[in-house]
């Protein structure tokens, strides 16, 4: 983990609308991308505005490169000059693309000649060569956001704050820009805080993730840890875990817990025991989080000893839904579980609504957390 660039400690900001931002601790590291994810209105953009000193917190501290930057004696302009922000809207000024890109440099009274290599690199990478003389209003949303990114990146900031920069762009431009942005951030090792409500975008771009809900951080940590081990129901749902089961830990042996699931369909006479890797104590009221891609479907009863999956659940397909490339299969095992399969698998396994099916899940793929 690199050194800490931005640390937020016990930061509180109240709004008249009764929204309250209350961040206990958050940290962005050098050369890392920290993604702030959460639903709209959860406080992600507020963090960006506070970090860029565009708003004043009610209490708490922010440290930039180890130095406290909250207080009346702070030179806000000089701090802001070390940080670049790209907002959800491109916010370009009424001048050419070229002048927009160089605006930050001219504010700092710096010459383009000192930034020529960086300028050429960004213009090429962000495909702006042919747009430099254009009026920003004549550009598409994606092109405008590319200009805004170039304007922010050419300043060579210590910290880059990106506040949902891809949110208002059409799907094709978005994917293209996402790839270009990732290239640039990785190539330049830029320390970044990236705000998004799109978990897939966070998964692609980030090193660390903080999940924010109603002004509070629900979970903060390494991307894989957050995605594999959500700490509560909100985080689990937000990061796309479709199967969340409530149950009670009956016994644990060698870090494998036997959990009795609360059934919601008593008509099905099916065993409701699931094994999950955890060190929880017997009697714990637990939630089991299972990612759809971790559920494998079988047509016939398979010999348990042939599989590494400890859980083989029998259920009935209650729904098959198109979600683009994959199909979402809803299975009633006495409790609802969701699996994603390809169209090929649908045909090969001859899956249809009402069909009896076996679902295999490895105990290690199931994440158990206290309810």
């Amino acid at each position, binding site marked *: 983990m690199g050194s800490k660039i931005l640390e937020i400690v016990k930061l509180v900001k109240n709004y008249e609308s009764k929204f309250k931002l209350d961040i206990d601790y958050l940290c962005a590291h050098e050369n890392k991308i920290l993604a702030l994810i959460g639903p709209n209105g959860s406080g992600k953009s507020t963090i960006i505005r506070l970090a860029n000193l565009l708003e004043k917190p009610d209490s708490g501290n922010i440290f930039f490169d180890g130095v406290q930057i909250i207080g009346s004696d702070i030179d806000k302009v000089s701090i802001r000059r070390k940080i670049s922000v790209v907002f959800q809207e491109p*916010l370009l000024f009424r001048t050419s693309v070229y002048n927009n890109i160089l605006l*930050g440099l001219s504010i*700092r009274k710096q010459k383009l000649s000192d930034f020529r290599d960086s300028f050429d690199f960004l213009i090429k990478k962000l495909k702006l060569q042919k747009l430099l003389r254009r009026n920003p209003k004549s550009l598409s949303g994606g092109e405008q956001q590319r200009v805004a990114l170039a*304007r922010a990146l050419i*300043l060579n900031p210590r910290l880059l704050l990106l506040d949902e920069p891809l949110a208002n762009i059409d799907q094709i431009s978005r994917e293209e820009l996402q790839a270009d942005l990732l290239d640039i951030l990785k190539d330049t090792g830029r320390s970044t805080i990236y705000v998004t409500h799109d978990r897939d975008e966070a998964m692609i771009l980030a090193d660390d993730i903080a999940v924010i809900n109603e002004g509070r951080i629900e979970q903060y940590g390494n991307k894989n840890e957050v995605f594999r081990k959500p700490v509560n129901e909100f985080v689990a749902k937000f990061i796309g875990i479709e199967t969340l089961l409530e149950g009670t830990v009956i016994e644990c042996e060698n870090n494998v817990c036997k959990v009795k699931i609360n059934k919601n369909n008593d008509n099905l006479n099916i065993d409701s025991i699931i094994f999950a890797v955890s060190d929880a104590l017997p009697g714990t009221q637990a939630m089991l989080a299972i990612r759809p891609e971790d559920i494998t479907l079988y047509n016939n009863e398979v010999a348990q000893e042939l599989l590494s999956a400890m859980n083989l659940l029998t259920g009935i397909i209650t729904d098959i839904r198109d979600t683009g490339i994959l199909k979402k299969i809803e299975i009633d095992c006495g409790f609802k579980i969701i699996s994603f399969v390809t169209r090929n698998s649908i045909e090969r396994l001859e899956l249809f609504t009402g069909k009896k099916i076996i679902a295999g899940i490895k105990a290690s793929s199931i994440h158990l957390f206290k309810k």
Partner: protein
Amino acid sequence: MELIWEGIKKAFILIFTGDREIFGILLLTIRVSGIAVIISMILGIPVGLVIGLNNFRGKKFIISIINTGMGLPPVAAGLFISLFLWRSGPLGFLSIMYTPTAMTIAQILIASPIISGVTLAAVQQINPKLKYQAMSLGADRWQILWILIKEAKLPTLAAIMAGFGGIISEVGAVMMVGGNIRGQTRVLTTATVQMVRMGNFDIAIALVIILLFLTFTVNLALTFIQQRENITWAQRFWR
């Protein structure tokens, strides 16, 4: 009808033969209104920007005062300035009553609220997030102001046109504080009133034609500056 036709003919003769008195009146009009509009810009544009771009207590009240100022009757402006500049008034010691300076001051009082008000309305149309963007780019207070002035360039030119239109055509204030003294404080509007009173319609028509031409020329120039940018952008866009 014959009176009008004769008047127009004589007016053109006066204009094209370069009548000295009319030429003097034109120059004084340009000087008084030109200086007044420039000072009104210096006063009115920053006031409009500061009020338009910031939120503070009493903002609505101040805007109401400016809006009232925009409709200030010239005779009221003339009266206020007269009261101050009158020999026994608070600024009587300056002895500038019935001088072009007094006329300029009266016109500043008329044009400043117009320029402020139109600028204020214009900058309120600017996306308020642009101020945040300028701040986040590291701009200091003055740089932010300058960036936003440039952003409001087109509507600000409209404010200048409105201010100029308001003073070049007014007669009440300049008559009151200037006194319409021949060769000293007589401008196009006061001279026109005087000539009509005297029945010199040919000269009055000549003065009005000059006044219209002057107003048209200034507005044409400002419109060209205002529209040039849009036209260029549009041409690039459709190219």
